[in-house]
């Protein structure tokens, strides 16, 4: 690129975040969230190899979509019914690295489940992150119910849910979206489309390029965005939130993302994805892309970046240390919380 072209490109980029009204500080916060999520995620795999984390499921490659979407929400007001790749999303809404590491080590004080659920089954009441099962797409309907209740109670809350593209094949996804469409609820479904459901490729999952094509059939807005482009996801989500808040109905957002890792620590994607595909995919790194954006916009110096990386790493180190040393759950507590402990209210 010539000097001139590069300068033009930079200006265009600056204009993008400025047009969105995003201050440099906000951008750096988002960048930090992505870096932190990536650092935690990478560490999980190390812990897995060390035999300390029996199960790992990853959000690497999805960070821009999640952080961009989260930035458009009001933490603790708007709701998230997440899915297992939403680490970055949840961090952006208030989950701490320690919170998360407590769940990786299945510790008693893990706020999501007290070590009962596998890691990445996020839940944090105070952040309005709802509890989820492993059964995909069930949470979509919960988000619809949350949105219905918000409206019924006169609360200005928007309910967001995330799923993978494979999970859109489930009946629950359909039943939820239809219900949201009928009642024009403040509801947003973000599909993180990474081309695979474990090993099942997109072409065997659906007959369309993007499930955004389904929005019209529910009477809702539908949009497909480049999920590697944080600002694009932010913009789409912000618009959807505004729609929801002003009574103009729900939105379906499809963010095209990359699944950097195998499905989980129990999978090996080289078994079913050709090497060229993997290679090309790995070049779509959303964290690097946003870093480049910030650097080209002169918002992030190499030192700043270094510092952020280091801060994140040591935050993760600390979280791992504390979590590893934390108490495991009591065996006898297995009987607790089947029913309310305070009895019929």
């Amino acid at each position, binding site marked *: 690129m010539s000097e001139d072209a590069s300068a033009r490109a930079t200006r265009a980029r600056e204009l993008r975040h400025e047009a969105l009204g995003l201050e440099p500080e906000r951008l750096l916060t988002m960048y930090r969230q992505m870096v932190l999520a990536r650092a935690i995620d990478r560490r999980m795999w190390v812990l897995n190899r060390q035999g300390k984390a029996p199960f790992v499921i990853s959000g690497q490659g999805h960070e821009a979509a999640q952080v961009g979407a989260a930035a458009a929400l009001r933490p603790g007001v708007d709701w998230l019914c997440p899915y297992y790749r939403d680490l970055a999303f949840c961090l952006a809404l208030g989950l701490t690295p320690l919170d998360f590491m407590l769940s990786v080590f299945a510790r008693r004080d893990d706020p999501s489940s007290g070590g009962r659920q596998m890691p990445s089954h996020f839940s944090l009441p105070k952040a309005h992150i709802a509890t989820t*099962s492993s059964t995909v797409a069930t949470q979509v309907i919960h988000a619809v119910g949350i949105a219905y209740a918000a409206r019924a109670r006169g609360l200005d809350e928007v309910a967001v849910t995330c799923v993978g593209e494979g999970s859109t094949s489930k009946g629950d996804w359909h039943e939820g979206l239809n219900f949201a469409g009928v009642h024009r609820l403040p509801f947003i479904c973000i599909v993180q489309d990474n081309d695979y459901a474990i090993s099942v490729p997109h072409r065997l999952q659906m007959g369309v390029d993007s499930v955004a094509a389904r929005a019209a059939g529910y009477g809702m807005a539908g949009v497909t965005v480049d999920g590697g482009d944080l600002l694009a996801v932010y913009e789409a989500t912000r618009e959807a939130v505004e729609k929801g808040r002003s009574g103009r109905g729900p939105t379906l957002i499809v963010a095209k993302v990359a699944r950097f890792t195998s499905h989980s620590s129990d999978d090996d994607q080289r078994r079913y994805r050709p090497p060229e595909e993997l290679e090309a995919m790995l070049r779509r790194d959303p964290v690097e892309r946003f870093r480049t954006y910030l650097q080209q916009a002169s918002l992030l110096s190499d030192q700043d970046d270094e510092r952020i990386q280091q801060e994140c790493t040591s935050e993760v180190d600390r979280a791992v240390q504390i979590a590893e040393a934390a108490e495991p759950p009591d065996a006898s507590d297995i009987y607790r919380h089947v029913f309310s402990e305070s009895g019929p209210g």
Partner: protein
Amino acid sequence: MAVKTLIEGVREALDEEMARDERVWVLGEDVGKKGGVFLATEGLYARYGEARVLDTPLAESAIVGVAVGSALNGLVPVAEIQFADFIHPAFDQIVSEAARVRYRSNGTWACPLVIRAPFGGGVHGGLYHSQSVEAFYAHVPGLKVVIPSTPEDAKGLLKSAVRDPDPVMFFEHKKTYRLIKGEIPEGEYLTPIGPAVVRREGSKLTCVAWGLMTHYCLEAAESVAGEGISAEVIDLRTLQPLDRETILRSVEKTARAMVVYEDNLTGGFGAEIAAVIAGEGFEHLDAPVTRVAGPDVPAMPFNRAQEEAFMPSPAKIADAMRKLATY
């Protein structure tokens, strides 16, 4: 006290609870203007409006899932599944979700909701409007399972269910809706979830039942009473949690026990009752625990002859009582 039908008990409970607490709302197919296919919600739409008495799309999983979500955000949903036969599509939302919200979140989330569904046969409903489904749910920890058999209990138990902090499956035998009449106390009352009730005292044998079968057992007990067989009839009312004490106390007295249920014999909830009695009441038993139940065929046929062949009846129960008494 006024004599009313069982479904009036249901309706009054819903009405009172909705009037008492504006977080309570009703959702399901045809619960609105029509007032439900059995008219359990009649009048509520006019009184509380569409947002609180919502005709949902035809989607049972969504009915339960929306109920769960609304409970997470502060409402108290009472979902109606039009027929228990059509609850199966919502199985996952009930079993994996509603039943586990509290447990999987280590007590940090709660899921107070009620799922009402008419069940049972003998009404020419054929294979898909006659089923008993309580065994599926009484097997799922995290759910309470309630089946009233009188108008008074229908009202008192449903009011308790609405106030319960956990998910309650509330099954109403559709043949009892108008057949079973009884007095409903004036004024507010709650019938606690849990305790069974002895509907008829007896000394020779114990008969455990719920729903319509309670009444058939009472009829049967009456018919064998003249033959000198004194049968005690326990109406379980709540299957989960199960009132072991009332059952075992009775068996200790009578030394003979039978369980009567309309569901298929094998793996029906009567198997659990029989196992409990045979396990914990072993020392007291003078005879094997008898089970009178529907046969192991998929469901109740529509034609009258086969429907009758399926249904446990007062006559069949009386026969079993005679056999058990003389064992």
